[in-house]
């Protein structure tokens, strides 16, 4: 079987599955028993089940993702990397095995040497370990180490940036989890109420009405979530983590620029500050001059005053007398 034929077959199967899903959705009927898809068992019954399945799938995914990203601070970096390494390898291994079996389907069995070579080039074991092997990643501990005068500070800055990046990823995952929960809540509410409407005599007046209702339901759920304690906590943590990472990143960039004889961000910021202060001083001088000119103009416009010098001095004298009493 050549690869074109293989691709055509895959395409045709995919189309058949899509058609079946649409038919099942439209009629509210049952799909073939035992039919499974890439993400497990497909919807068993109509739109309601489709939402339910989707909700469950989404929930699992977000929980797993959050779990996967969360333990940065609770566990050691090595444990974290080890777990991530293992999870990645397991997932990658499945994909790798599938691709190899497909290869053998249309390309025939590979000679063992080629197989081994491919494995060493593409197999996850070959490069993932080298890239993120915890022993080679020992530098990560430098972030917590005391500074040594004889060692370069650059590595420590890089490691701090990596640490902040990981914290940021964790906070992104936490944030996504909170947001995802609100979406799921909206789905659940929507599917229950939609089911009730569909069972009622009135039914729905068309897809737009259903969409409008979905928008209203989701809007309310999302706005409530945006005020919830979980969201506010996640949002704050995300903003803090994002700022911390940006600053750590700038520290590394500044250090690199210094080595390459390029002005650093901090130096330019200082320069801007100087320019700002000078401009401000100039503005203030101009402002004072404007005020003086205005005063002068008003004096010029004002009718000349008589200056009864004697009376004024008498008043001053009398007031002084009054004060002294």
């Amino acid at each position, binding site marked *: 079987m050549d690869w074109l034929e293989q691709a055509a077959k895959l395409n045709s199967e995919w189309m058949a599955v899509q058609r079946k899903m649409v038919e099942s959705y*439209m*009629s*509210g009927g049952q799909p073939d028993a035992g039919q499974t898809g890439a993400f497990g068992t497909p919807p068993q019954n109509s739109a309601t089940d489709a939402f339910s399945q989707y909700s469950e799938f989404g929930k699992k995914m977000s929980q797993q993702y959050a779990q996967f990203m969360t333990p940065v601070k609770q566990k050691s970096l090595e444990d974290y990397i080890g777990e991530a390494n293992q999870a990645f390898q397991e997932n990658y291994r499945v994909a790798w095995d599938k691709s190899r079996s497909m290869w053998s389907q249309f390309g025939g069995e590979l000679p063992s040497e080629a197989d081994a070579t491919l494995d060493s080039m593409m197999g996850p074991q070959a490069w993932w370990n080298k890239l993120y092997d915890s022993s080679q990643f020992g530098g990560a501990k430098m972030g917590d180490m005391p500074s040594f005068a004889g060692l370069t500070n650059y590595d420590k800055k890089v490691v701090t940036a990596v640490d902040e990046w990981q914290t940021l990823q964790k906070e992104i995952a936490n944030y996504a989890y909170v947001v995802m929960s609100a979406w799921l809540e909206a789905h659940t509410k929507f599917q229950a109420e939609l089911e009730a409407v569909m069972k009622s005599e009135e039914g729905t007046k*068309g*897809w*737009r009405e259903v*969409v409008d209702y979905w*928008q*209203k339901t*989701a*809007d*309310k759920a*999302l*706005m*409530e979530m*945006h*005020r919830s304690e979980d969201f*506010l906590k996640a*949002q*704050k943590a995300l*903003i*803090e983590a*994002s*700022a*911390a990472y*940006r*600053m750590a990143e*700038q520290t590394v960039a500044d250090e690199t620029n210094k080595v390459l004889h390029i002005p650093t961000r901090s130096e*330019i*910021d200082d320069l*801007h*500050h100087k*320019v*700002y*202060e000078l*401009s*401000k001083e100039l*503005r203030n001088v*101009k*402002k004072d001059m*404007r005020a003086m000119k*205005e005063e002068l103009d008003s004096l010029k416009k004002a009718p000349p005053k008589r200056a009864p010098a004697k009376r004024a001095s008498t008043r001053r004298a009398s007031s002084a007398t009054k004060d002294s009493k």
Partner: protein
Amino acid sequence: MAETLEVAKTAMSAYKECADYIAKIENAQRKLASIRNEDVEIATTPKTQVHQVDKAVLYRYDREDDKPSIAPIVVIYGLIGRQTMIDLQENRSLVKNLLSNGADVFEINWGNPTRGDRWLKIDDYVDGYIDEFVDFVRAQTGHETVNIFGICEGGTFSTVYSALYPQKVKNLVVTITPIDFHADQLVDRIDHGFINVWVRNVGSQAIENLVDANGCMPGEFMSYVFQMMTPMRSLTKYNLDLVEIANDEKTLLNFLRMEKWIADRPDHPGEAAKQWFKDYYQDNKLIKGEIEIEGKPVKLENITMPVLNVFATHDHIIPPDCSKALGDYVGTDDYTAMEIGAGHVGLFVSGKSQKVVAPGIFQWLAERD
């Protein structure tokens, strides 16, 4: 058999709806493909640059005659967004409305602050740029005092300015302006006051860090914040709303003009952003009398000129109660509140408000000229 027929009917009806919608999408694609960016014009009312300080530019709207009916109006917008909102299109232009009544309108454009402007403070805007522009207008027009017209954050700047320099302000008009930044808590509404809630929640250190890390408050960040306030509308405005309105060229162009205005969101200078979010939003210092500009205390009771406060009932960005509060703190006896049944932007651009807002403001000013 009857059941099968019913299912088939439903399926056919669903397919028809689907086909109709696809036809609408195709139509929208065709319409959009025929429109160029230059077709979507905003801020077209002719004006002339009359003064510039750093990046801040003062414009004067062109007039056919040189005898304005009232004292000059200086429009002051905030640093979040762009002042072009008041001249979005010819038949929905606050500026055009004011000009047609005979007003002499000046307008400040803050330009595009970059990281180089990160040190600018609200002090610089109020005591520096605004004061210089006001002096310029006074000198240019020969008026001792001018009408100050503030919008949103610019309304707060205008309020602060009027408290510092009451002798230069004839009348103060503020629109959709926050004064009591904690008043969002007075009513239990889930759909408004998100900026107030979120800014209070993150604390002052996060604001410091966010600005220090970016050198400013990025315009994109504020856009994202605004999108989050109306989550589903943000998600469906292109794939549903735009498709629905594409048939009507006039409505489509209105939509695209609004998009053009929203997309033009400059960065907010860093130090000014820190002050705005910490001193004003978090600590609510304005109504406490704790704001200082260049060391001078800002006392709202010094606002003794007539004040017109225009706010929107459905404003989800500046809750009406945050604006209404102004009346409790100013020192004038001539205070007018004008509530408009619109949203934050709708107050300026909705068809309905064209007949109310600009004519109402002009009449109020004319009565006090």
